[in-house]
């Protein structure tokens, strides 16, 4: 399963965090510090996986943002890489060529989208259309209610 999702900027600033396993606030900052140090310094040609404390962290850089997901030892890294890409594509579709600023100012929306893709640390929906439909339904519902 996926233990957490981190979005870190190239400067090491946190843009989004989602924890599927319990971590205390202290552990969280430690994890972020450790991983951002490790991942940001990696060369672009190196592989997108880092072994860390018995887990594997799969990351991918999109423009200035690093998308990282921490998975178990026996999970499929390439699949997770695909999930990351999937998330980015949906964000892109939702925001219309997404950029870091969109995520900075609308991070809660990114959370909603992530909640439709992952649930309890597992992929729940890999169809972009379905996710888009659900998000749209929510927006419509809001509109009609408020």
């Amino acid at each position, binding site marked *: 399963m996926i233990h957490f999702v981190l979005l870190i900027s190239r400067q090491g600033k946190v843009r989004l965090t989602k924890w599927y396993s319990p971590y205390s606030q202290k552990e969280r900052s430690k994890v972020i510090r450790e991983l951002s140090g490790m991942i940001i310094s990696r060369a672009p040609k190196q592989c997108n996986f880092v072994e860390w404390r018995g887990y594997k962290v799969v990351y991918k850089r999109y423009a200035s943002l690093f998308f990282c997901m921490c998975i178990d030892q026996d999970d*499929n890294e390439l699949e997770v890489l*695909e999930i990351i890409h999937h998330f980015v594509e949906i964000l892109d579709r939702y925001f219309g060529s997404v950029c870091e600023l969109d995520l900075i100012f609308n991070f809660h929306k990114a959370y909603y989208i992530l909640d439709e893709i992952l649930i*309890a640390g597992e992929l729940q929906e890999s169809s972009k259309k379905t996710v888009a439909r659900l998000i749209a339904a929510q927006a419509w519902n809001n509109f009609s209610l408020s």
Partner: protein
Amino acid sequence: MEQLKTIGRELAMGSQGGFGQSKEFLELVKSIGEARSKAEEDRIVLREIETLKRRIVEPDIAKRKMKEYIIRLLYVEMLGHDASFGYIHAVKMTHDDNLLSKRTGYLAVTLFLNDDHDLIILIVNTIQKDLKSDNYLVVCAALNAVCRLINEETIPAVLPSVVDLLAHPKDAVRKKAVMALHRFHHKSPYSVSHLIDNFRRKLCDNDPGVMGATLCPLFDLIAVDPTSYKDLVVSFVSILKQVAEHRLPKSYDYHQMPAPFIQTDKESQIKLLKILAVLGSGDKQASEHMYTVIGEIIRKGDSSSNIGNAILYECICCVSSIYPNVKLLEAAADVIARFLKSDSHNLKYMGIDALGRLIKISPHVAEQHQLAVIDCLEDPDDTLKRKTFELLYKMTKSSNVEVIVDRMIDYMISISDDHYKTYIASRCVELAEQFAPSNHWFIQTMNKVFEHAGDLVNIKVAHNLMRLIGEGFGEDAAAADSQLRSSAVESYLHIIGEPKLPSMFLQVICWVLGEYGTADGKYSASYITGKLCDIAEAYSNDETVKAYAISALTKIYAFEIAAGRKVDMLPECQSFVEELLASHSTDLQQRAYELQALIGLDARAVETIMPQDASCEDIEVDKNLAFLHGYVQQSLERGALPYIPEDERTGMVNVSNFRSQDQHESAQHGLRFEAYEVPKPPIPSKVAPVSLSSSTDLVPVPETLYSRETHQISSVRSSSEAGSSELKLKLDGVQKKWGKPTYSSSTSSSTNSTSQNPVNGVTQMDVAAAVNSRVRDNYDTREPRVEISPEKQKLAASLFGGSTKTEKRSSTSNKVPRASVSAPDRSQESKAAVALNEVAREKTNQSSPPPDLLDLDESTVTVVPASVDPFKQLEGLLDTSISSTTNHNSSGESNAPDIMTLYAETSASRESGSDGYSIPVIGDNVNLLSELSIAAVRGTTGETTVTPLSQSVKGPNAKDSLQRDAKVRQMGVTPTSQNPNLFSDLLG
């Protein structure tokens, strides 16, 4: 330009009234974005927290405003600050009727709270209500929260509603409900154990997404207990087939839009393959169902896309886990080759990982990829490098252990990550203990590990090392023992000079110097004692080291006195002892006093107190105190009461005491502070689990203080034992290495050989090895160096070449005629080889013509294309052929000519194994035999002129071992060499 875009976006953001972000919030985000230092950022956030604290408690806040506050809280929390003051407001917001507010509330609580937070109880009610809502979006939001927030205690409250939702008309809801149940299963397997049928039923859901989601809980269930799901194999295979062929159920049709949903397919394929891997592992029947579909997926595999490769990789994992199938293994090897040849580091990484999995089943696959693996090993990318070490670890055997461990140690020295350093150090130790070719090398290796990984190494390793040096080879190898010990002493005296040695290493050094420092008479007592005092002085704040040092001093003086020499203490020793006499530590003090007392005694007394080299002698403790029997008898006769054991004496009282204490404990459930001793499986009923389990566990233990202590001790001991097994210090393996030589073959332990034959004689085996090594050594010195290849090739040879070679064993006896002896050795080895190899051999036995041996050289290029595929003809023969070869082997043992044929065939077919199953050029029996004898004859004639023991030749020097290994490979009559001259040379 960039700035303009930014401004544009911000404007758009600001005008976005619908989502109600105020100027304030935008300002906050912006100022944090512009903060130049962490301190500045913290200042801004703290100010924000103050503002929010004030604002959020104001009465009558508009909903929109409140929502924004909550989002601001989220932001603060995300930046790593504490926003707990606002949690309750987030909880309140979940009660709101407005979906938008409700969702914000749920989002906030899922991000703020862990499932053990006190506020959860306030949300459960809302969740219960929302799960029954008519609006499916509300249900979705609630289910999201359920997955995150519901803990073991609150599962029963929501479980019925969640189960009802499995039949919800919306697939999104069904999917989330399945995942929620999956989560429940994670948290408390018993809560959903009655729902397993629901999972099975959901497998047939007409929405592939729901089916895919169901695979998650099923995978977990199957991983725990594969046998009760064997019946599902056929359905899984058929689903996989449908998914792989994109044949989704016709009924599935989303909003009149035929849905290809390729993506969903791929993800479920991976999950399905994972499940099949578990179900098929070790189960031939189940595996047979899968062969076709897996083969099909691999064949159609799309290696251009990421997800396509993910599936291919998963196929390899599955193939390597289920009952082996030759065709699939071949296909998997092809995929691995593609991965490794790729430019992408990701694929290389996956390739190495897959290779590590496959190598367990067919050890020969690595050989095709020698250079690729070495490239990965030398890659600057740490991740790739570590993965490669993992692979090397899996393929280590006694022939390549030196190179691999040296590499590992070099890498260990170069990194600073403690976590991985510990890990790789334990790997080194494990390999060294299992495969060390010589004691000298072992000690050198351990020295290096201790020196660089230091205190990260498990203390057990140090104790093992000491024991190894102490026990030596056993009774009949005194010469080798003392050689080992003096080489250890030598190396330690050398190392002592280096600054900052880790404490654990110093303890080993002190112990060895104390026991054996003066044993061989090379160093005088005063020299060794001087060194020991230096250590104690240099590490004067480490009491353990000082204790070891003073004990070592005691021993050395005792040996001196026992030998009748006069002892004069060096002044620094004198002062050291005096210092310890006044030490605060009673332990050190006592040791010092003991030393002082000992020096005063005469030689005979000292000898009995401290006999030389007696660290391994068993000290017999008379637990029954038998020497007191007479006295007891006398007392009894005089009318004394007989002794009643302590637990019997107070037993009754204790049990009742204990009961009451137990009840007491269960009454204040949740306030137990001492740790539970043993992890127990979770208890199904929630009523009185604590008292039940703890009473069964603890009643036998009497209540008195003393016995409680022993109980603790024993539990500690057992836990430390568990620790050792975790580290896999394979002591039995070590004993085999250093004790009397016994039958053990590391290849047989690493591969899942199906045909072990215990008939093989121990002595025969050894002698054979001795012959082999003798011949080999002889060759090392005699043979001029012909091999001119780049360093990588050498490394490759030393890493991979050994894989088909016999185990090295040092033995000094040689009584049996040479030529006939090699056979048991070979057959031994062959038995260790995998079933597949056996099949190959059988095949070659039956049909292939015997071409000239010299042709072998031409087939030695690393990859030879298969001319004929023996397995195509051989499918189905697998089982019978294995058993028949076994018979063949055992019969061959009694029959010398048979042995020779077998030998010839074995070596030839092994050759074939290394070349990826091409039908090899089969060795002409007669030729091979004559060649062998020639080799043997040469061996005898050159014998006197060469250094006879392989031990002395083996150094830690990587280059030496590389060369040696390369030659050994040529010598082992498994001519995969790059040296075409060798055989003509051999044959004259």
